[in-house]
């Protein structure tokens, strides 16, 4: 009887010791995983997000970008039409420039029914320059990185997409690698089979739909990561590029043609 009770106590103590050991072992393994910086890869126009926000908050009420005159002039190409110094002065205090008799300012004042632009005195020179830089590289026409067509991805971006797919690089917000549940043909048994095979997903859904899909979690019910995000725009684009490359490789295309003849009819293979 005593032996039985002692065995029970031993099992209990052993379980406690095992739990403690595992708890102590975990942090080092987590540290090894590391997190790659999203800024390490991918290209595309860079601009200050604050500049875009300021432009949207203060300028779009009276100006458009490439959509014609609203209250004031269309700002598309404004950085080519006017000198940077003049723009700085005008944005900071248009009333002063008009009063000084500047011919361009006076002409604009007359052209736009003597509607004077507010003097943005609270904006620093850097803030105005950032807005002008933003407009110079395309302004509101700039597409988010993930909306770019995967066809223009560089080989480095495609390779990063492969690494993200296989979990060789961790996603910034801790989203699990696609390989956890999905596979791509031609990579052996590495991929999971809980979710569908993604070999021809790019051909099936095409670029814009895949972009929208990658902006959401695979499972709507998936618990939020601590950072609250899912994939960064660059990660999403890189994954799209990898899926495109996988789908369009000769071997995969013949596989796709066998599996999904409807894609041949839609001309997806010629893309």
């Amino acid at each position, binding site marked *: *009887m005593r032996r*039985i*009770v*002692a*065995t*029970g*106590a*031993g*099992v*209990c*103590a052993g379980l406690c010791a095992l*739990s403690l050991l*595992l*708890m102590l*072992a*975990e942090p080092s*393994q*987590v540290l*090894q*995983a590391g997190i790659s910086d999203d800024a390490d890869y991918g290209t595309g126009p860079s601009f200050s997000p604050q500049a875009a926000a300021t432009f949207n908050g203060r300028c779009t009420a009276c100006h458009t970008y490439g959509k014609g005159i609203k209250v004031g002039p269309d700002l598309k190409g404004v950085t080519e039409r006017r000198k940077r110094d003049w723009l700085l002065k005008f944005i900071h205090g248009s009333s002063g420039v008009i009063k000084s008799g500047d011919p361009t300012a006076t002409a604009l004042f007359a052209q736009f029914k003597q509607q004077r632009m507010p003097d943005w005195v609270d904006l620093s020179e850097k803030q105005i320059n950032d807005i002008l830089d933003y407009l110079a590289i395309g302004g509101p026409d700039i597409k988010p990185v993930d909306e770019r067509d995967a066809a223009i991805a560089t080989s480095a971006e495609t390779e990063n997409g492969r690494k993200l797919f296989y*979990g*060789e690089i961790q996603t910034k917000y801790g989203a*699990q*690698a696609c*390989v*956890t*549940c999905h*596979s791509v043909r031609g990579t052996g*048994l*590495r*991929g*999971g*089979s*809980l979710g569908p095979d993604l070999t021809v997903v790019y051909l099936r859904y095409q670029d814009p739909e895949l972009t929208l899909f990658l902006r959401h979690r695979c*499972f*709507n*019910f*998936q*618990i939020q990561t601590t950072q609250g995000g899912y994939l960064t725009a660059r990660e999403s684009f890189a994954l799209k590029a990898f899926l495109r490359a996988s789908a369009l490789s000769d071997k995969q295309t013949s596989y796709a043609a066998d599996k999904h003849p409807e894609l041949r009819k839609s001309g997806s293979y010629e893309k």
Partner: protein
Amino acid sequence: MKNSSLFVLWPYIAVVLLVAGTLVRYLVATRQPSVLAAEMADAKTIFGGRLFRISVFVLIAGHVAGLLFPRAVLSWNSSTAGLYLLEGLALAAGLAAVASSAVMIWRHLERSGRSRMSEAFDALFLGLFFTVLVSGVLVAVLYRWGSSWGEITLGPYIDSLLRGQPAVQLATELPALVRLHVLATFAAIAVVPLTRLSIFLVVVLQGCVVLIAQPFRAVSSAFAEWSNNHNPGSWIWPDED
């Protein structure tokens, strides 16, 4: 009962039945200590077999480790060799457990029991446990790398149950075989106190009670000794000494 309520209520019911049933068995066993050893020997014969015990221990330890340390498991699985090793080991343990439990069921059917009731509950438990094992092996084969995807679906589901905020969709959206594995596991847990297997839990519980009671017993014996040495009776009634 709706699928979602099944995944909300059933786990809690199963755990309540396990805890309450084990407590009742413990109280009965402490009143009849002579029966404990006999029941233990009986349970060892029914649920014996080294292969069964080792394989089931490996499977349970693996599942518990997966629940407690999901990030460590995912980190381990990020290496292809590590993933194959873990899944291979788990599959081998699962197959060994299926084979050994099939043998156990066969033996159980041949044996004549002490009471029909306990025989029936033992058979029910073995049947449920066999379902758990077979469904687990099939999930491992049909839905590859459960040790990875389980960490982002079933792991958080169990976590949500423990926090008292069940995220049922984490389980209900999974394939039917996975859902069967989960529900059969909770059913087997609920039945445990009614089987002779519960005697193992009683022994573990008794061990815990001994461990917890030890410091209190030490303190109370120390106090008794101190009060004996400082007995006020000796100087209240010195003549009686």
